[in-house]
């Protein structure tokens, strides 16, 4: 077997399923018919699991992380101008460099630019609601956008989503793949949201709430919220591990 210059890391840490929402969560009604009933089959990592897609600056454009400008037609979108920034880390605290982060959200009125969204709040002609960026060499990322509005949805008859931004992250491997949602500090709708409450662990919920970050705000221009994203960690190869690549 060929050797790299440095020992290759081994398997990823086992995912702690106690901090993630289970698949079957009756308070979130759509999950009832869409959740597997049998136990997941636990597998040790192979080359198929420790690899995953690699993205580069050829894949995206610099404006893609600016939701204020990336769909502007006649001017800027309506809404509170905000920066969302933070770091993608692994569970060992290492930054995850050059990884793709994609976001999507409703506009300031709580309406998505999507043919399936029929909420009565208006579409903003200058707001698309999606963006993407690569983390830098230390795992840092940022977006500029407008703060999304809350909106009603058909779960219970008076269910409302708190303001949130959907976040998709890759990491270095297909087993780190994660989609989550970022919430905003101080939003009273968080504690009554059925989707938030699918998460059984209060600390895990807190970890999805981005605090206001006045130090990153731009005076007379926009506020800022900080959202760090933690992906699964990976064992170091302290001793010869049994994971064989190829």
């Amino acid at each position: 077997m060929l050797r790299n210059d440095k020992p290759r890391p081994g398997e990823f840490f086992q995912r702690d399923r106690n901090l993630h929402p289970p698949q079957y969560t009756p308070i979130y009604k759509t999950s009832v018919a869409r959740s597997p009933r049998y136990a997941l089959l636990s597998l040790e990592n192979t080359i198929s699991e420790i690899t995953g897609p690699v993205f580069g600056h050829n894949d995206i454009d610099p404006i893609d992380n600016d939701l204020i400008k990336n769909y502007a037609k006649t001017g800027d979108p309506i809404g509170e101008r905000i920066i969302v920034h933070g770091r993608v880390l692994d569970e060992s605290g290492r930054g995850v460099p050059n990884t793709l982060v994609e976001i999507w959200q409703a506009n300031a009125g709580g309406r998505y630019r999507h043919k399936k969204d029929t909420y009565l709040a208006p579409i903003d002609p200058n707001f698309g609601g999606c963006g993407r960026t690569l983390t830098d060499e230390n795992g840092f990322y940022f977006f500029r956008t407008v703060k999304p509005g809350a909106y009603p949805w058909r779960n219970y008859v008076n269910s409302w989503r708190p303001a949130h931004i959907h976040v998709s992250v890759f990491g270095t491997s297909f087993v780190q793949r994660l989609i989550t949602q970022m919430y905003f500090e101080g939003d009273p709708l968080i504690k009554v949201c059925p989707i938030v409450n699918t998460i059984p662990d209060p600390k895990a919920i807190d970890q999805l709430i981005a605090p206001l970050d006045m130090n990153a705000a731009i005076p007379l221009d926009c506020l800022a919220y900080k959202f760090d994203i933690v992906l699964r960690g990976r064992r170091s190869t302290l001793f010869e591990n049994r994971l064989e690549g190829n």
Partner: protein
Amino acid sequence: MPQSLDYLRETASQTAGPYVHIGLAPGAAGFQIFRRELGWDIAGPNAPGERIRVEGIVIDGTGSPVKDVLIEVWQADANGVHAHPEDQRRDQIADGFRGWGRVITDFETGLWGFDTVKPGPVAGRNGSRQAPHISLWIVARGINIGLHTRLYFDDEADANAADPVLNMIEHVNRRQTLVAARSVRDGKPVYRFDIRLQGDNETVFFDL
């Protein structure tokens, strides 16, 4: 008190929701925003191997097709090489082969499909060999955490019979939920792979 381990905890998953297309496939949501959408070309034009189509539907516990799913695909090339820095043969990958793709279901029919090259076998653990397979990751409204599964090929009967992962599935009758059925349409191989989230013949999903 012992020392603290100081590990961080993984960020909790949340459902991709009904508007996942806006973020990950905006063209499907009905508008053009990015110069280039990601994930529509898995294998590129130059990769060797058999060009195939893979398609299917995702079925929920009521037996209905799920029409707002997004599926991501990860695979090796026809020689069993992954386009990833940790694959020591990655230099042999053809230009344009990424091995990753992203597809959504048709809003009316629930059908999804993608074109790629059929992957080759890859190394398993402890000197074993894995049958050709494609890794899939499934997210949608109502799915709280992405579902990992694998697609195998029904014309690889011998390799499948020896595959360490398929052989780990205790209930032998469930192994076939991971095997796609080959047919030929307009001269091109098409593999059918229906994913059942729940109910009769529920697909085997993995905790990886």
